[in-house]
């Protein structure tokens, strides 16, 4: 890279927008980011306000992503903060709840599509143009190892929504390749987070016991890779999905 380019890029931190900071992965990630952060919460307004006061370079915004108006309102909230956003990490999803297709609920499914996919599309629609002008952006999304190979039984709504997000991620990676913007994703297997609350402990135990490493993934395992994807000098990697599964699923 020429000196000019280095200079030009030297001030490329900007703000990192973490969508879905409610999840333990989001929370852990924010801890590792010393620069300015805008944290989005959707589970609890209180948590959002609480966090805001913790750190002076952290803004927090509550937003219900389960409907188009909610997403629009959230984006307006972020815009109101009036800072250039150079990095976006997209984590929101509902906890995966096992269900047979015979219990398929179209409204619950469309709600999930809003939370995971429409939110990603509308947020990127809003903030990518400024990244293009700046010729720099880093986007990271959180998929699931269920997007790799044979998915588990009884999670068709969740898996389908994650696939929709995967397709969006790849399409946009291609659309923005060569504009200084990378769009990548991680695909973790079962991870120790508050989202596991919907599963009985013996199920989690049994997954850990069956895993060659004898444990499920931790937020730290995920955050380390997410951080790498946000690095300025990781610029030739886009559209990729990084399995974080301890060898239980990969391409």
């Amino acid at each position, binding site marked *: 890279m020429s000196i000019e380019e280095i200079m030009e890029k030297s001030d490329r931190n900007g703000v990192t927008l973490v969508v879905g900071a409610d999840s333990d992965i989001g929370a852990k990630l924010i801890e590792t980011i010393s620069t300015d952060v805008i944290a989005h919460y959707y589970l609890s307004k209180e948590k959002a306000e609480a966090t805001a006061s913790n750190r002076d370079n952290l803004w927090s915004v509550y937003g219900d992503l389960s409907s188009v108006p909610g997403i629009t309102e959230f984006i307006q909230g972020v815009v109101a903060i009036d800072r250039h956003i150079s990095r976006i990490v997209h984590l929101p999803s509902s906890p995966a709840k*096992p*269900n*047979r297709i015979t219990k398929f609920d179209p409204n619950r499914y469309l709600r999930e599509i809003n939370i995971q996919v429409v939110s990603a599309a509308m947020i990127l629609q809003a903030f990518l143009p400024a990244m293009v002008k700046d010729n720099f952006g880093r986007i990271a999304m959180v998929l699931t190892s269920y997007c790799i190979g044979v998915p588990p*039984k*009884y999670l068709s709504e969740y898996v389908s929504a994650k696939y929709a997000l995967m397709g969006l991620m790849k399409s946009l990676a291609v659309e923005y390749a060569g504009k200084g913007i990378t769009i990548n994703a991680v695909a973790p297997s079962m991870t120790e987070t508050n989202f596991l609350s919907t599963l*009985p*402990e*013996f*199920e989690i*135990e*049994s997954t850990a*016991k069956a895993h060659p490493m004898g444990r499920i993934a931790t937020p730290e395992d995920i955050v380390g890779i997410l951080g790498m994807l946000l690095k300025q000098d990781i610029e030739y990697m886009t559209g990729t999905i990084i399995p974080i599964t301890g060898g239980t699923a990969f391409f």
Partner: protein
Amino acid sequence: MNRAEILDRVQNIFRDIFDDNDILITDETNATDIEDWESLEQINILVAIQKEFSIKFSIDDVEGLENVGQTIDLIEAKLS
């Protein structure tokens, strides 16, 4: 709580999970006796039992449960 009472409560859980109020279970009842009794239902049954009796199962408890009888033995053990 005696075994009969436990069996009765567990039977209600089965009727609820399989949407079938005619289900009658005995100690010998197992997954082959009830259509749709697969991994998902087994988990739901165990979770419902945990709630119903306010007990908690470990993986070692629930691995290899083969029929209703063994499940009730387990509940009894947890309650005692």
